[in-house]
């Protein structure tokens, strides 16, 4: 098993190398001089030269890449062109709201979607099943921000039970923190829930057709124990996989959700960076988010062994 873990960890290296290459080249795929691109339309030649010097754009490409990657590996993601502060520091400063949003969304999505998916599988073909799957299909059709605005309209403007926008740090008290996170998490989580519910239903449905379930049913096991003790653990691998894959959805979604709900997180940071062409910030966030995704899916692969004793490497 240790050999498997080592192999799996090593396998992420080429993926991360490609990610680094893609993130690095983004600045260079654009036609023209990257320094002029960053400086904008009204820049003087001196300003362009200053940016070129600062980003070492005068070096050959491979040296630039080596330098950039070497620094990144040491935790130095460069300096923001506009605020002149280290990208890593900017990122850390904005991290709390984003982590809070992502964790809250995952918790809500898993807690709601898994039982609902199990229920839909248990009552496959019934009205409940059709209703759940209908909502799941709808969940894929709405852009995150439209869901966000609908939630704001209903719960904040009409019912006035939750705040419209904004973020409260957890240090200001748990209750206001939670109140401000509910709507963004639901908006961000809808497509995630749809994904998890569909896979849970499909996976549980498959397990329900197996012999040991029939045996359990024949010996008179109550439905709840049958579903959650016998069926769900056997159906867990695809569900855990999709939760891992869904993290990509989540990481992309925070960018939009934070804009809708005016949450000062990493997503806002990257959107502001794009509007002001602050490339070191864009590259830094892209790199860290991709790394997060790869690490989460690495963990998911290792979790398989823990949740399913049939898997042995």
């Amino acid at each position: 098993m240790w050999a498997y873990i080592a192999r799996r960890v090593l396998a992420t290296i080429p993926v991360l190398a490609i990610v680094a290459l893609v993130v690095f080249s983004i600045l260079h795929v654009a036609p023209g001089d990257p320094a002029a691109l960053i400086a904008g339309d009204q820049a003087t030649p001196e300003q362009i030269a200053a940016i070129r010097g600062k980003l070492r754009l005068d070096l050959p490409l491979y040296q630039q890449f080596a330098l950039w990657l070497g620094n990144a590996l040491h935790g130095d993601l460069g300096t923001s062109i506009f605020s002149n502060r280290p990208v890593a520091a900017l990122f850390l400063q904005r991290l709390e709201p984003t982590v809070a949003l992502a964790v809250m969304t995952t918790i809500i999505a898993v807690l709601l979607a898994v039982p609902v998916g199990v229920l839909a599988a248990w009552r496959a073909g019934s009205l409940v099943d059709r209703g759940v799957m209908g909502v799941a299909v709808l969940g894929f059709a709405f852009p995150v921000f439209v869901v966000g605005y609908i939630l704001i309209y209903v719960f904040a403007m009409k019912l006035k039970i939750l705040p419209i926008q904004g973020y409260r740090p957890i240090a200001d008290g748990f209750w206001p923190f939670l109140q401000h996170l509910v709507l963004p998490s639901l908006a961000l989580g809808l497509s995630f829930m749809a994904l998890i519910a569909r896979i849970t239903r499909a996976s549980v449905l498959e397990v329900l057709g197996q012999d040991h379930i029939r045996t359990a049913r024949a010996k008179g096991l109550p439905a709840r124990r049958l579903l959650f003790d016998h069926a769900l653990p056997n159906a867990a691998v695809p569900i855990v996989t999709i939760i891992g894959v869904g993290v990509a959805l989540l990481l992309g979604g925070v960018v939009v959700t934070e804009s809708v709900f005016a949450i000062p997180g990493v997503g806002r940071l990257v959107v502001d960076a794009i509007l002001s062409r602050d490339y070191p910030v864009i590259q830094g966030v892209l790199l860290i988010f991709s790394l997060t995704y790869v690490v989460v899916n690495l963990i998911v692969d290792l979790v398989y062994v823990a949740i399913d004793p049939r898997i042995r490497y």
Partner: protein
Amino acid sequence: MSDALSTAAVPADASARRRRGLWWRARRHPTVAVGLAVLAAIVLATACAPWLAGHDPLFVDPMARLKPPLGAHLLGTDALGRDVWSRTVHGGRVSLVIGFAVAVTATGVGLLIGLVSGYNRIADAVLMRCMDGLMAIPTILLAIALMAVLKASLTTVVIAITVVEVPRVVRLVRGVVLSVREQPYVEAAVVAGSGFGRILLRHILPNTLAPVIVQATYIGAAAILIESLLSFLGAGTPPEVASWGNIMAEGRTYFLVAPWIILAPGLVLAVTVLAINLVGDGVRDMLDPRFARRL
């Protein structure tokens, strides 16, 4: 059910059997019929936009700013007094064209790379690592990062979304190729002396088409969604082009006083994406009944 069985049981000739087969399948998959009908209605409406709109989508009327729906304007007006309904109908043209263009280019490019990858081990090792790397970067982030360096235009939006969607097609095609190339009839073709190109085109390509067409519908739907997200964040189609995303982006500031500017195009977009997904799901189930029973 019984009449369907009896008509299917006594086919007059081959073509009649095929016709009834189609009809029978359509009845078993009513969602496809509904999806197609809704999609057709939306395509038709956007195609007839100049006649359906009633107002000029670009006409600025300072006297009629932020008017609510169901007055002189069916879906109200935006902050410049422009008619939201006519902007939505016209905007559908942009969004649908982007969806279609991305679906075609992404599947085309993905098919090509996937075929090569499935057939050549060395190319496969390199290409699949690249695809894994691309897929590790969250879709929306990669697309907005690309838009940040490209000059905003319809073409660059299509390019940016295509780049993020191609790996999905490649994976799918590669999987099909890997399983098909081990089939006895492909081995038979090799033994019979068919060349590499002939095997690829005559035996392997046709097998990939069905899943790729299904995937193309999903990609078209995803492209429409991603375009709206990009435009909403200010990194999509240029602001003067009234795509659904741009109409909603402009409504952002006024959401508290004029929610219809976002909700109207948003709902139309959702219905469109839903219809495309229903068609995709249904076609997938028709092509693979085993899968249909599971999902």
